[in-house]
């Protein structure tokens, strides 16, 4: 008998859990549930837990499809989850996004316990941002709760959520980039070394970080500890304790980051902004459809304009404080259809994980019908020394239809600041060179000078 090679049918990120897998068919993402998860899935649906989580908008809703796409012998059910606009990863979230993802996970855990179920994993990759809020996407993470056992995912939860949040809270540094290295979370031992001495004097932190680090270092794992009995009350106390530590954590918003007061402070300020907004609204007027991505979104002033008529706006900026501020606006209900993430266009998230396929690169996920890039080009070309030709190619790679882009000339106050201490930059840096390189991939549909400045707003259409 010849053994036929088995070609993976699953999505490259969906291979760890034997309970089922995600796959793509007909342009949509489905989830196959295997027979080994049948009892837990039935319990999720019959216990009222699914209904409770959907009502609270904590879990992604799905519909059951009675089709065994791959004629798989393990097949139990196929479900079609509500499709997401954009997949983001924890290393692209701002502080409050990570914090809300953590609190959402704990809230779901608590509700699950009340319904006789528990979360079998606690990774931050189970959370996505959808319609302005954190939502749990792994329908197969729920299993029957055994009151005698502690939470199997406790350590994973701490490493993926609690520890990065504590590091950021105490040091006021971005932890996003760290999480792209520690894909499975930051270990307790590493966290204990990174946190300041004063954190030891908080009992909760001492228990969850220092004690855990010390126990992990000394305790050789045996099956004996796994059989020691626990209780529901103890588990609920543990969840409360985690919630009580996480809820007050914050990053100072008063610290001046690079761009968080850009529009408020710039001397071009009010008139410039009004004129730019007027032209911007004209330019986007009749192309406002499909997915829009505002790159270099700053505080989201223009993302919010895009969101007025567009159902899906992704707003990205390398400044995590700007992104956090925008996320808090979205959370406060100012707008719901903006998803803000921390992305540095000159060093975007790479493809990570097993076989470089588990977590997709930003470029693979970024393709959008419309891309807007306001007051950004001078940073890429003058600060980062990327030639126009490469910038144009990058924008053509992620733009499906339209590109709205602002050219900031060398005479501009902001450009002058950028080149003040530089000995060299790519020349010529002028509208002619800019247009020459961009028209390789785009056709210029409109071009407007912003009154009172030499800045130019372009609307370009991608060449077929």
């Amino acid at each position: 008998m010849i053994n036929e090679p088995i070609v993976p049918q699953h999505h490259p990120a969906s291979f760890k859990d034997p309970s089922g897998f995600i796959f793509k068919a007909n342009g949509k993402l489905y989830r196959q549930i295997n027979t080994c998860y049948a009892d837990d899935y039935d319990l999720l649906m019959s216990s009222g837990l699914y209904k409770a989580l959907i009502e609270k908008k904590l879990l992604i809703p799905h519909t059951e499809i009675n089709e065994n796409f791959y004629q798989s012998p393990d097949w139990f059910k196929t479900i079609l989850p509500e499709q997401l606009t954009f997949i983001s990863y924890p290393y692209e979230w701002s502080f409050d996004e990570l914090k809300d993802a953590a609190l959402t996970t704990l809230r779901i855990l608590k509700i699950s316990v009340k319904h006789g179920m528990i979360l079998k994993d606690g990774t931050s990759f189970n959370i996505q941002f959808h319609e302005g809020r954190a939502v749990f996407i792994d329908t197969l993470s729920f299993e029957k709760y055994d009151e005698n056992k502690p939470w199997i995912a406790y350590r994973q939860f701490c490493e993926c959520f609690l520890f990065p949040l504590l590091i950021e809270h105490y040091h006021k540094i971005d932890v996003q980039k760290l999480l792209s290295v520690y894909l499975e979370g930051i270990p307790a031992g590493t966290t204990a070394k990174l946190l300041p001495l004063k954190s030891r004097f908080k009992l909760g932190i001492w228990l969850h970080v220092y004690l855990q680090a010390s126990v992990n270092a000394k305790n050789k794992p045996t099956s004996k500890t796994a059989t020691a009995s626990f209780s529901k009350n103890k588990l609920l106390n543990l969840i409360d304790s985690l919630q009580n530590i996480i809820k007050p954590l914050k990053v100072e918003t008063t610290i001046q980051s690079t761009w968080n007061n850009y529009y408020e402070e710039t001397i071009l300020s009010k008139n410039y902004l009004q004129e730019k907004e007027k032209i911007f609204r004209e330019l986007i007027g009749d192309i406002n459809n499909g997915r829009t991505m505002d790159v270099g979104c700053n505080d989201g002033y223009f993302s919010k304009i895009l969101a007025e008529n567009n159902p899906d706006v992704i707003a990205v900026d390398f400044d995590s404080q700007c992104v956090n501020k925008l996320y808090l606006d979205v959370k406060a209900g100012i707008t719901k259809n903006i998803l803000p993430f921390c992305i540095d266009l000159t060093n975007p998230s790479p493809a990570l994980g097993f076989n470089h396929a588990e977590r997709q690169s930003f470029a693979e996920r970024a393709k959008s019908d419309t891309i807007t890039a306001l007051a950004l080009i001078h940073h890429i070309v003058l600060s980062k020394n990327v030639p126009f030709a490469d910038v144009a190619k990058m924008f053509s790679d992620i733009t499906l239809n339209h590109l709205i882009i602002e050219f900031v000339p060398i005479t501009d106050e902001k450009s002058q600041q950028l080149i003040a201490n530089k000995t060299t930059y790519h020349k010529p840096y002028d509208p002619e060179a800019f247009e020459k390189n961009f028209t390789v991939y785009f056709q210029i549909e409109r071009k407007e000078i912003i009154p009172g400045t030499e800045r130019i707003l372009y609307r370009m259409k991608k060449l077929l």
Partner: protein
Amino acid sequence: MKILFLYIDPGSGSYLVQMIIAGVLAGLFYFKNLWLRIKSFFVKNRKDETTDND
């Protein structure tokens, strides 16, 4: 020594920690309740702190 952890499931090492933490929290909870009861004896109509409505 750290190499040992390469063979452990992420969850398994946390059981003992949870047992200890739960023990400490239970103790704290006991004293907190005791304190609240003493306090409520002197201060009447004190509203309990509410958490999530879940």
